[in-house]
């Protein structure tokens, strides 16, 4: 136990994900020995992020205004919406620089065992976005795990009757991996989705 404010700092740092009591102590003492200008800059950013960052009212990605920069960008294709679980998935897809459509962030995946049902996600908001007829394709890019697959199944069942094209990113062998280590489900999907080799 340390005195007053130092212990407060350790306690607060210990609340962060992946930071245990020892780690919190180490970070606290690093901050105490660091250049005060650097620490003040970090504190200012922390305050700023809580004050300025909110969720985009259209897609629910993190944004600094009412709408995120992707929703505001007129060059993005409004006819394709890529549905993801979390804002960090938007960042992962943006990194590939292939997708030019827009996003919709659900805020998680359906997981009844954790008490998360369809009503706890932003599915109603997605359906409202589809109502104006501007969207022609929905890409269901939820995680390729059980909850993500079940969420995609639920959404496909909801969206397909509207007559939209519903797609899901391919699953299969990771580039740079070795075939013998692939599990049966992944390998099965890779064979199911095999493609012609153009030479």
């Amino acid at each position, binding site marked *: 136990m340390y005195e007053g404010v130092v212990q407060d700092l350790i306690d607060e740092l210990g609340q962060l994900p992946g930071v245990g009591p020892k780690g919190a102590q180490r970070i606290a003492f690093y901050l105490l020995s660091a250049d005060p200008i650097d620490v003040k800059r970090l504190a200012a950013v922390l305050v700023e992020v809580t004050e300025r960052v909110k969720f985009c009212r259209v897609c629910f990605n993190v944004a600094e205004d009412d709408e995120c920069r992707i929703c505001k960008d007129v060059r993005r294709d409004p006819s394709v919406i890529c549905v993801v679980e979390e804002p960090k998935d938007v960042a992962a897809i943006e990194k590939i620089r292939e997708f030019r459509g827009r996003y919709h962030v659900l805020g998680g995946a*359906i997981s*009844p*065992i954790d008490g998360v049902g369809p009503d706890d996600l932003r599915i109603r908001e997605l359906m409202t976005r589809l109502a104006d007829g501007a969207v022609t394709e929905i890409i269901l890019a939820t995680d390729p795990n*059980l909850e993500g*697959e079940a969420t995609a199944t639920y959404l496909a069942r909801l969206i397909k009757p509207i007559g939209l094209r519903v797609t899901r990113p391919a699953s299969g062998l990771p580039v740079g991996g070795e075939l013998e280590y692939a*599990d049966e489900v992944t390998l099965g999907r890779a064979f199911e989705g095999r493609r012609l080799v153009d030479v």
Partner: protein
Amino acid sequence: MGENGLVAIYRDDGIVLRTHKLGEADRIVTVLARKSGRIRAVAKGVRRTKSRFGARLEPFTHVDLLLYTGRSLDVITQAETLRPYGEQLAADYPRYTTGTAMLETAEKLTPVEKEPAMRQFLLLVGGLRALGEGGHDPRLVLDAFLLRSLAVAGYAPALEECAVCGTTALQAAPSGGLRAFGLASGGLTCQNCRAPGSATPALGTVALMVALLRGDWDHADASERRHQVECSGLTAAYLQWHLEHSIRSLKHVEHA
């Protein structure tokens, strides 16, 4: 003890009940194992796309595991898929929600870690297989699983004699039969033992519950919808009363 004499290594097969994220790329995996009962073990790096575990440690998968005993949690070193039930279930939303309720019930009925629960394990394997094969209505598969799980745990509802005084249906017939179903009483009761607030299920509902407990699928499959709905309600209420816990997945179960 393992070959190095320091670490206890063991092998078991089981059904993955649920997973929790741990740190950057790990998961804590809860498994109902054949010999060891419910175990919680760490799967290191399983969330990375190039993990050697791949989809083997997803819920619903029947896996063959090699583990070593850790200080608080065991660690999974190898996993081989025996049967991936999740693949079929995730593609069918009503079956997925039904299966999730089965996993959660199995977890709640095995409160003590590493206490062997072979019969509960075999029930779960059988239930998931029946759910995956699609031969019966998922609602019936779930109720059969819940009723039999309760029976294995020692909470089988009395359906053929009074839960309080033991009067058989035949003996109770002149005074109105066994018509009251009390959660706290432990099943059907005669009119003399009827507890306040007991339900009065239809005869067809009671017959369906008996059929599901016994595994009489011809009877269960031919049962009327209204009896199936009443049976689900009674079974869920009875389960949650005896577990003293709510099964969160049950309210999300979607019936086809």
